[in-house]
């Protein structure tokens, strides 16, 4: 009797489970519409949706769709002058005769998503928000050199610079997302992150905010009445999936439409899939082995301050073999502190080529001619041995570190690998407590930003110049290039600066990862830029999903 009752209960549970699993239909039996929804599988959630606070790529993707900029960058991106920009929030602009100011005429049709008209005051307010020290925006430094933003009338905002330089327009149009003063003006600047606006942002972009379940998903809906026209996809949904395997499977199975970066086996599967394809969109990332030139290593004060030693170490690395082994066809050998996506790059530049015989001769000449029982070179009894920091979060750099260790060993150099979790890695770099480090940098479309990583302006090191590289010729050429309006002259100066830093062997330039997105065939992307593959996402076409 009891068994019969138990069986009935089990049957009911199984039936309910089946109904739940097969559910998801409307009361009339139809399936909810998923017309032209673009679903993106992303490894991390957006950190913030208030533009000055955004620090992650995911946050940037969302705010770039939610908010407008004064002008939109074209593809390919040009950073000097305004020829590479098209009107966005500003319908037009006019330069002053001395080129120290630009008056932007706000499109009178522009509306915030709550219906309020966009005004010039919003531009002035947005600039003030970005540079306010209380806000502590990580982007405040992008506006250096801009004196102020004033309001001429309700639809005209004027941006004033302290001095002319070729990237004035890029600086303001690329970096300043326009925010609503009528909604943010009353919010305490030190509480922006916890404000109601942070949870429900209001922009003027072609997508408006719909839903954000933190660490789960973010949904933007098409602003169908937008003054710039309705976007292609009715919704854009980011679904957070931290595990790369699961994330790739969601795209391969059709449950998500794209993943911005696919590697390894997932790349191969995507290539072989009939419903998904891979799309390459360039990269502004480069990885390098950085030497700390200020550090005492192997009892040698400022060991890596010796250029000849750095050159010898670079010559002992077969970078082609390292990249082929670690990345196969998903990476290229890096040329320097810039990438092939940079408009100013010259791929014919002179490189320090792999030459182990020359490396051995050079190390002998530098006095590292002795050998200990392990075969490691010695000088006055001290072994040529150093530690390299590698972030544990990067499987690629972990692999590369092992390959470098092996290659160094062949010329008698002992490189020890210290794998650290990212916060500890970052802390050691900041404090300069490292011999060498395998770092990766995401550079900017603007060539001038190289100063922020490798520059030493007026003798003071740039904040991110962790290796303490300093060369006044390099600084002078970059500074000159940043103020030269002659584009040909500018290219010459930049090339000379790049050649200087490469000849100096400031680091062993290792690889540029190639970025491949896996995209469902029903999605037709356009204008995927290396710095922002999502820049033209509002113009992507998304077809009806195929039934499964």
């Amino acid at each position: 009797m009891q068994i019969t009752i138990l069986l009935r209960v089990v049957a009911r549970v199984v039936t309910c489970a089946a109904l739940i699993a097969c559910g998801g239909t409307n009361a009339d039996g139809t399936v909810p519409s998923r017309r032209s929804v673009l679903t993106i599988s992303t490894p991390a959630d957006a950190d913030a949706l208030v533009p000055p606070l955004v620090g992650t790529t995911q946050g940037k993707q969302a705010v770039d769709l939610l908010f407008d900029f004064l002008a939109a960058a074209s593809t390919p991106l040009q950073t000097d002058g305004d020829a590479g920009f098209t009107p966005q929030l500003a319908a037009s602009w006019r330069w002053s005769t001395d080129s120290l100011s630009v008056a932007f005429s706000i499109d009178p049709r522009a509306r915030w998503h709550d219906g309020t008209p966009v005004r010039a005051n919003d531009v002035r307010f947005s600039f003030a928000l970005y540079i306010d020290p209380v806000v502590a925006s990580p982007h405040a430094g992008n506006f250096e050199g801009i004196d102020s933003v004033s309001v001429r009338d309700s639809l005209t905002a004027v941006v004033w610079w302290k001095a002319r330089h070729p990237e004035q327009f890029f600086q303001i149009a690329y970096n300043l997302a326009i925010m609503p003063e009528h909604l943010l003006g009353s919010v305490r600047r030190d509480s922006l992150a916890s404000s109601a606006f942070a949870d429900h942002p209001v922009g003027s972009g072609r997508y408006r905010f719909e839903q954000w379940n933190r660490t789960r998903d973010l949904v933007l809906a098409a602003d169908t009445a937008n003054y710039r026209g309705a976007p292609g996809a009715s919704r854009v949904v980011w679904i957070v999936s931290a595990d790369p395997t699961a994330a790739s499977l969601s795209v391969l199975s059709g449950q998500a439409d794209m993943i911005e970066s696919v590697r390894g086996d997932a790349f191969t599967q995507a290539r072989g899939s009939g419903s998904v394809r891979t799309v390459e969109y360039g990269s502004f990332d480069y990885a390098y082995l950085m030497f700390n030139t200020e550090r005492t290593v192997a009892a040698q004060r400022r060991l890596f301050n010796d250029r000849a030693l750095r050159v010898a170490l670079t010559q002992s690395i077969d970078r082609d073999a390292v990249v082929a082994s670690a990345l196969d066809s998903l990476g290229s050998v890096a040329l320097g502190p810039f990438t092939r996506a940079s408009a100013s790059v010259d791929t014919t530049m002179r490189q320090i080529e792999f030459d182990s015989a020359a490396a051995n001769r050079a190390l002998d000449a530098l006095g590292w001619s002795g050998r200990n029982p392990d075969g490691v070179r010695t000088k006055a009894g001290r072994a040529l041995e150093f530690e390299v920091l590698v972030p544990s979060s990067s499987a690629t750099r972990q692999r590369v570190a092992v390959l470098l260790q092996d290659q160094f060993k062949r010329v008698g150099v002992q490189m020890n690998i210290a794998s650290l979790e990212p916060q500890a890695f970052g802390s050691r770099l900041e404090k300069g407590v490292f011999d060498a480090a395998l770092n990766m940098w995401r550079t900017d479309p603007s060539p001038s930003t190289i100063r922020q990583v490798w520059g030493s302006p007026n003798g003071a090191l740039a904040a991110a110049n962790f290796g303490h590289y300093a060369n006044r010729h390099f600084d002078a050429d970059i500074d000159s290039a940043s103020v030269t309006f002659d584009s040909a002259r500018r290219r010459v100066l930049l090339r000379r600066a790049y050649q200087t830093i490469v000849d100096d062997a400031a680091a062993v330039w290792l690889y540029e990862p190639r970025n491949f997105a896996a995209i469902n065939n029903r999605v037709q992307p356009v204008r995927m830029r290396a710095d922002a593959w999502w820049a033209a996402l509002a113009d992507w076409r998304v077809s009806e999903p195929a039934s499964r």
Partner: protein
Amino acid sequence: MITLLLRRLLHAVAVIAVAVTLGFALIRLPPGDALSGDTTQVGRSAASRDLLRARYGMDAPISAQWLGYVIGAVRGDLGTSVVDGRPVSAMLGTALGNSLVLSGTGLLAAIVVGTLVGGAQGWRPRWLPGRAIGTALTATYAMPEFVLAIGLIGILSYATGWFPVGGMHDPITTLTGSARERLADLGAHLVVPSLALALGWGAAIARQQRVALAETVGTDFVRSARAKGVSEGGVLLHHALRPSLSSVTATIGLMLPVLVGGAVVIEVVFAWPGMGTLLLRAVGQRDTPVVSGAIIVIAAAVSASTLLVELAVRALDPRLRR
């Protein structure tokens, strides 16, 4: 009973205090903090980082930070996330609810499967189907959680398309669906991750149930019941099963903290936004208020589950009440 409860309460307070203090110290031992430089792109200036450190009290001596945190926690204020500025209590509340749904479903399924299979094995040791199922369960238990999870995704989601690959719900259904549709959607997302949990836990429960029931079967009171003419079903349900549940209850009790603490591997693989995912991310980002808040919640859950198990065992075994 009142004395027992009071003793357990004091014990719980002590456990929480020690756990929070230890966690407070340990998370600050390694170098770096939530604002340590992002070394892949130009970020905040040093002055900006210093301002934020001062705002969040990260530049104060550790003892002052600890005291401030304890005073706030006693008042019910678990602080603000250093990473995204949200109240920690709200973050924990959401994550806790999500973990309870997943782990609770998995544990319930594990209890049903485990006690049924283990009971069958213990009652009828030579019954072939029972032995086969038990072996299969043990095999899944021996498998690393990650491998099991990916395998289930591959079969039930990728290859067949029956269930979603991950996540807790479909965002569009959440926005546009009816309550029934949202419940069905949640159920669909729950099947595979809870199955991954249930298989592992179910094996442990089945094993314990099998051993406990096998011991009970050979006891004098069971033989007496049979001698009195009680049916086999009656002997099992009224005489043998209940005494065997004490040890099984203890085993289940060990799993209760996971309801609150989250099954980290399963939550990460299935992108389930529970306590495990939250804590893992907070530790990685050095989001110390979130870590400390999570420790309080988990320590309280461990203490509560210990008490629950003790009460349950006492209820099952009258001898322990004396």
